[in-house]
């Protein structure tokens, strides 16, 4: 698809990179030529220099032929203006706009209907939603939903003393194997797609597919706590903290926010009636200890500095082993190192946005009948992905038992949803028309169910 991205900040660049890998034609618009040059040197896209809200610049970027415009400049208003102009010059264009100011939060519906924006994305809110989900289910490091919430892809780490340590997947009990499907194992820098002979070890980060209920049962059988937390301590009072607190308070979880800036504390206190707002430096030992770091059930590090967040989480882990710890990290660069450290769940705000937008783009493409991928979830920084496909027609892979198909290496058919039943397929199962199939693989750019086959002879 022809996509125009206005604004090449962190999110814009990450989007350009991720979407271009999926074979879209990407044109980026940015005021800063150096940013464009740097990006076009590493990603196969074209750049236009100028103000993205200007009609001439948009025309130069080919607005009339473009199918999607994504506005991610620093200013919400500019983003909306970009989309309005785009919509006027090309009424068929789909627009995705980033709006992060909480003021507009309740107006999103109006934007969509009256201004014709296809999708309004708020990165902080999306991240908050993900963190809230994790706090409600603290055993998982990461939760992604598939199949409209019927199946979840959960990631957890195997701790010392876990019954899974040293087990091969095929030796797990029949009960486990029928209720969940282990899809991938991350060990250090590497990602394996699981098969029967994969042996699990301490420190592995395991992703598995299950319905929410089965997931919780599975955690119980391997002795992992599954109750939602009752209280949380948020360090850093950013927008993300605001959204998160609001969601948690609505769910009946106690929230304590520690923020350095007094004025910001006042604002937060005004906006969040039930929250306890503490004015203090969250990186100071006396402050967080006094506020009960040792007893908190969950701790969320949301300051603006990655390093501070990571150190905070390490400190929290040391003094409060039981708590669920969530760490916000902006930069992806040190991902491989950070994932190694045992500091609970890492939340990348940027990749959350990228996943959501990429998923939406895919859905738009899908509605045009070009691709059959419904949702896609990155499991580890794009090294592996889970795709949900809808089988619409007969093909070489339908009605053939899986064991007879020559599948690609590093790929498994993780689950099949047939009407309301969820099947974790074994060799004897086959894919049928009408199924929704989840594939987990390290290969990228799969578009069609027939792509799961290896080299065609």
């Amino acid at each position, binding site marked *: 698809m022809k996509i125009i991205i206005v604004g090449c900040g962190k999110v814009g660049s990450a989007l350009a990179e991720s979407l*271009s890998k999926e074979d879209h*034609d990407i044109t980026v618009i940015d005021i800063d030529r150096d940013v464009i040059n740097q990006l076009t*040197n590493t990603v*196969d896209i*074209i750049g236009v220099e100028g103000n993205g809200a200007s009609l001439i610049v948009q025309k130069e970027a080919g607005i009339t032929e473009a199918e999607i415009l994504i506005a991610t400049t620093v200013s919400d208003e500019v983003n909306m203006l970009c989309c309005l102009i785009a919509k006027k010059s090309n009424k068929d264009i789909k627009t995705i706009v980033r709006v992060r100011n909480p003021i507009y939060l309740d107006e999103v519906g109006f934007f969509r209907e009256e201004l014709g924006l296809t999708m309004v994305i708020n990165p902080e809110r999306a991240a908050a939603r993900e963190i809230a989900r994790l706090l409600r289910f603290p055993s998982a490091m990461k939760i992604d939903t598939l199949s409209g919430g019927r199946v979840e892809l959960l990631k957890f780490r195997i701790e010392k003393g876990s019954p899974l340590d040293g087990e091969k997947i095929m030796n797990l009990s029949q009960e486990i194997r029928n209720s969940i499907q282990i899809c991938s194992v991350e060990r250090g820098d590497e990602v394996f797609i699981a098969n029967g002979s994969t042996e699990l070890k301490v420190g592995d980060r395991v992703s598995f597919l299950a319905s929410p209920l089965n997931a919780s049962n599975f955690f119980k059988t391997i002795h992992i706590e599954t109750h939602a937390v009752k209280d949380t301590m948020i360090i850093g009072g950013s927008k993300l903290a605001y959204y998160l607190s609001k969601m948690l308070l609505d769910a009946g979880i106690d929230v304590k926010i520690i923020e350095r800036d007094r004025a910001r504390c006042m604002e937060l206190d005004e906006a969040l009636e039930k929250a306890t707002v503490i004015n203090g430096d969250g990186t100071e030992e006396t402050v967080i200890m006094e506020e009960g770091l040792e007893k908190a059930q969950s701790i969320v590090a949301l300051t603006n500095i990655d390093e501070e967040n990571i150190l905070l989480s390490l400190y929290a882990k040391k003094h409060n082993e039981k708590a669920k710890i969530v760490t916000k990290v902006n930069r992806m660069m040190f991902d491989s190192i950070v994932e190694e450290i045992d500091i609970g769940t890492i939340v990348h705000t940027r990749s959350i946005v990228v996943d959501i937008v990429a998923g939406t783009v895919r859905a738009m493409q899908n509605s045009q009948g070009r691709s059959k991928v419904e949702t896609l979830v990155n499991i580890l920084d794009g090294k592996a992905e889970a795709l949900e496909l809808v089988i619409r027609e007969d093909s070489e892979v339908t009605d053939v038992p899986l064991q007879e198909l020559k599948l690609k290496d590093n790929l498994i058919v993780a689950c099949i949803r047939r009407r309301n039943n969820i099947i974790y397929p074994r060799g004897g199962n086959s894919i049928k028309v009408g199924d929704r199939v989840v594939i987990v693989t390290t290969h990228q750019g799969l578009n069609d169910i027939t792509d799961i086959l290896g080299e065609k002879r």
Partner: protein
Amino acid sequence: MNFASILYILGTLIEVEGALFIAPAVVSLFYRESEGFIYFSFAMVCAIVGRLITINKVKKQIYYAKEGFISVAFGWIIMSVVGCIPFVLTGEIPHFTDALFETVSGFTTTGSSILSDVESLSHCSLFWRSLTHWIGGMGVFVFILAILPKTGAQNMHLLRSESPGPDVGKLVPKLGDSAKILYIIYFAMTVLQIIILLIARMPLFDAVTLTFGTAGTGGFGIRNTSIAEYTYIQQLIISIFMILFGVNFNFYFFIIIRHSLKEAFKMDEVRTYLAIIALSTAAIMINAKNMFESVSDGFIQSFFQVSSIITTTGYSTADFNEWPALSKVILVSLMFIGACAGSTGGGFKVSRLIIMAKAYIRELMHFIHPRLVRNIYMDDRKIKDETVSGVMVYLVSYVLVLMVSLLVISLDGFDFETNFTAVMATLNNIGPGLSHVGPAGNFKDFSILSKYILSFDMLAGRLELYPMLLLFSPGTWRKK
């Protein structure tokens, strides 16, 4: 430096060249020439060698600007060395240095020759000689990018190192698609020229080979008199197509893909280029009128020579060595100017000239208004100051290469005019110069050292200096 990546791309290059050798082999079947067998077996050798090199996929396909430069510089050298071997094997050009000179001249679309009797070559060798022009014109790496199934953005460094112009960009978001569009336009125009020449009653073999020479703005003829023996109509067709191939290909992109004549003709470079051609033709017609039989003869001859020189093709219909001094000076200046950026032509490029002229005026204005602030514009677009200083640095490098080459080949003891125009003709990828190396002469009598120097100049000129200069600069190879 990622040598594995460089080696892989070079292997691909050898494979592609192997496939290209099939073309002359097929030609030899028509003419029942035994040389075809050599081409065919050599094609097999290339295919096997290329396959062996590329049999292992490179794990880390990371390319930075440095790897791009080095791959392109090495690629062109290897391509020329491989391409010259059939000439040696068939015995048509027995000396390796001569064969290499001829092939480099072919791939770089120069058209300088060491052959005094072109007509004695077999058809398949003539065909191969002209085919090198066609391949070299748009660039072999661009070709590889166009045919490779998936190309990463980092290959942009390859395109940038190979394509001429001060500021190389893509036409469409995907690099592979950009390369395809360029080759489709190139291919379509080539076919068009062949058809028109056939309609003008040129024999098929001549039409194809001369079109290859025109399309790549090369200049290898298949007759000893270059183009002089063909009819006026055929000459006119060739000169018009030379001009068309010397135009920035963005021009055709605007017309064909964007359907916008307005955008196309807004390009300052194309307008300046056409104006220079018109003015030079008129000046030479008047200045050299005693050399021509009639006004129409004068027009055709001066038009042909002007378009041949400015596009750096190097075909000739007249021995301009005999023309009056002013006309010769005009032609030598045109040698320097060259064609448009983003075309198949060589030289300094009209766009660089425009930027330089505007920067020059700006500097002069600075003397009058020391606090003057003025940007340089081309096509209604601001030109980055880096691009402007890049053009200046290019000019300096260009003059340096020119001077050093001139010094070395002066050892051979030819007159200044010969030496100077020989370097000009090779560095700008034109072909013939003046005096000894004029349209009637050739480069045969230079020493082996001079031939290597001139071959270097041709490669440096085609790749716009930097890749070749970097290849020989120690900083590139230092590990730090």
